[in-house]
C-alpha cells in the first residue's frame, strides 16, 4: 500500500538569520531526504514534511522539537521530501541545513 503522509509544524522562534537565498541539502533516495530552506517574513520556524514512511508522527515531532530547541530559528521555512530516513539522518540533514544558514552560504 503506497501513499505519502504530510506533517506540518510551526514553532515560535527567536533567531532570524540574515536574508538568504534558498538552501538545499540532501537527496531524495531510499533512507534519505532533501530539505529546502527558504526565508519568510514570520517569527516562526515552519516545517512541512512529505514522507513515504507513514505513521511516525510522534518521532518526527520529537526530532523537530529537539532541532528547534537547538536553533530557535525564526523567519525560516523548511520543506522536506523524505523517503524513510532514520531520525539520525533527518537530524544530520537539519543540522547541515542550519549550518549553511550560519555560514551565510546562499
Amino acid at each position, binding site marked *: 500500500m503506497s501513499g505519502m503522509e504530510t506533517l506540518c509544524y510551526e514553532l515560535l522562534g527567536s533567531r532570524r538569520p540574515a536574508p538568504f537565498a534558498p538552501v538545499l541539502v540532501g537527496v531524495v533516495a531510499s533512507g534519505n531526504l532533501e530539505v529546502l530552506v527558504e526565508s519568510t517574513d514570520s517569527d516562526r520556524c515552519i516545517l512541512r514534511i512529505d514522507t513515504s*514512511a507513514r505513521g*511516525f508522527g*510522534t*518521532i518526527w515531532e*520529537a*526530532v523537530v522539537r529537539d532541532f528547534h530547541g537547538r536553533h530557535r530559528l525564526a523567519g525560516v521555512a523548511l520543506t522536506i521530501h523524505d523517503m*524513510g530516513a*532514520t*531520525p*539520525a*539522518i533527518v537530524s*544530520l540533514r537539519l*543540522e*547541515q541545513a542550519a*549550518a549553511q544558514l550560519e555560514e551565510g552560504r546562499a
Partner: protein
Amino acid sequence: MLLESVLECGDRVCLEGNNQKQADFLARALVQVDPARVHDLHMVQSVLSLPEHLDVFENGIASRLDFSFSGPQGARLARLLSQGRIQIGAIHTYLELFGRYFVDLTPQVSLIAAQAVDAQGNLYTGANTEDTPVIVEATAFSGGIVIAQVNEVVESVPRVDVPADWVDFVVKAPKPNLIEPLFTRDPAQISEIQVLMAMMAIKGIYAEYGVQRLNHGIGFDTAAIELLLPTYAKSLGLKGKICRHWALNPHPALIPAIEDGWVESIHSFGSELGMEDYIRARSGVFFTGADGSMRSNRALCQAAGHYACDLFIGSTLQIDLAGNSSTATLGRIAGFGGAPNMGADARGRRHASAAWLKAGAQARAGMGGAGGTPRGQKLVVQMVETFREHMQPAFVDRLDAWELAQQSGMPLPPVMIYGEDVTHILTEEGIANLLLCRTDEEREQAVRGVAGYTPVGLARDQRMVENLRDRGVIRRPADIGIDAREATRNLLAARSMRELVLASGGLYQPPSRFRSW
C-alpha cells in the same frame, strides 16, 4: 558407498560446515545415504551453511543437532524445529562447542575439507584451516574416523597441516570446496552515521582506555573504524598507542591501516577470499607457515580473543534495558558464532594491561564485598544505530529472544552477550558507559539515554539522563569533542573496493561480486 559402510545409526557426526569453508562434496554425499540403513545421526558442527546441512534432517538421515551458528539457514531451521523434524541439543559459541568435542560431544565420524593431499596422505588445509585441527584432534584420538575431501592430489604438500596417520579416508572432490567471503565489506556502503560512530569509538573508547589488543565483530561499523585509523585516528596522534595486535580475520578494510604501519600482528580464525597474495606479502604481520600461506585456527584465535584481547566491539540486532544483547528474531534460529566468547569478560584472566585495569577499576569503584574485589575487566562494546532497516528499533523493552525460546522449547532465552558483560553501548546519540552504573535504574536510564527516538529512548527520565551526562556516564559526540558534521565519508582511508586494491599495491584481488571497475 563409503559413508554407508562407515556410519552407524546414532553416530555423532561432525561435518565441516565452518563459518567460511564447507566440505560441500561430503555434505552432498551424506544427503544421498540410504536412511533405511543409516538414520538418527547426531550432527555436531560449527555452522549450518549449505542447504544439504538441513536436507539430512528432512531426509531422515539425522535427527539431532548441536551447533553454533546458522545464519543462512536460520529460517529453515526454525521451520524444521516447529515441524518436529529436528531436535536441537544446544546452540553454542564456537570455543564451547570445540570444548565439548573432548567431553561429551566427541565426533565418531568427521567429514572435513582440505586443500590438498600428498602421496603419504598428509593434508594441507592452507589459509582456510579454520576448525579442522580441533575436529581432527578430537576424532582421531578417540578412535573415530576422519574422512577428508580435497581439491587436489599432489606429490608433496607445501606444509603438513594434518599428519597422514590422523586421517582414515581421503577423496578428491570434483570441484574445489566452497569458501564464502564473509569478511569483506565494500567501503562504498559505509554511511555518514557509521563514520560518526566510528569516530566516537576511536576517540571515546580506544583512546580513552589505550586499547592495543582487540577483536572487531564483522560489520560496516567496524569496517569504518578500520578505515579511520590512518586518517582520523592518526590526526589524533594515536598511531602506536592503539590497535597494534588483532585477533581478526584478514579484513580487506584493514589494509590501509596495515600499510600505514599501525598493525604489528594479526591472528585469524580463517582466511578471506582474495586476500591470499596480500597475506603472503605481509607475512611479518599475519601468521603464515614456512610455505608462505596463512595458517588460521578458529579454536586458538577464539582463545586469543577471549584472554589476550582487551576489547571486543561488535554490532547486534536488539538491546534491552539491562544491556542484554541478542540477534535472535522470531521465525529464525541464527545462533551465536563467536560473539558470546569474544564479548564476555574473561574471569580467568590474570595478566594486567592498562585498558583492562582501568575498566575494572571503573566497574568496582566504591564497591565492597565479593563484587568489589579488585580485578580488571574486558571492554565489551555493543555498537548499533538506534533504528535498523524499516525503522525497526534496536532498543526494546523485551528481547524477541524470550518468545523464540518459548516457541522453540529452549531452556533459556538465547542472549548473545549478557548485559553484565557489556561495558559500553555506542549509538549515533553517544556512548553509555555501563561500568560507571551502580544500580539497575542507572543502567536502564543510561541505555535509554543513548536510545534516541526509539520508544525506549523517548520514555527516558529526562532529569536522570541529564545527571548521567553530567557524571560522564553518557557522553554525546560534543562531549567527546566530535562535531557530527565532520563525519563524512571523506575521512575514510579508502572509499571503494578499487581504493582498497590500490592501497594493497594490487595484491588484494576481490571476488567478482565486489568489483565496480
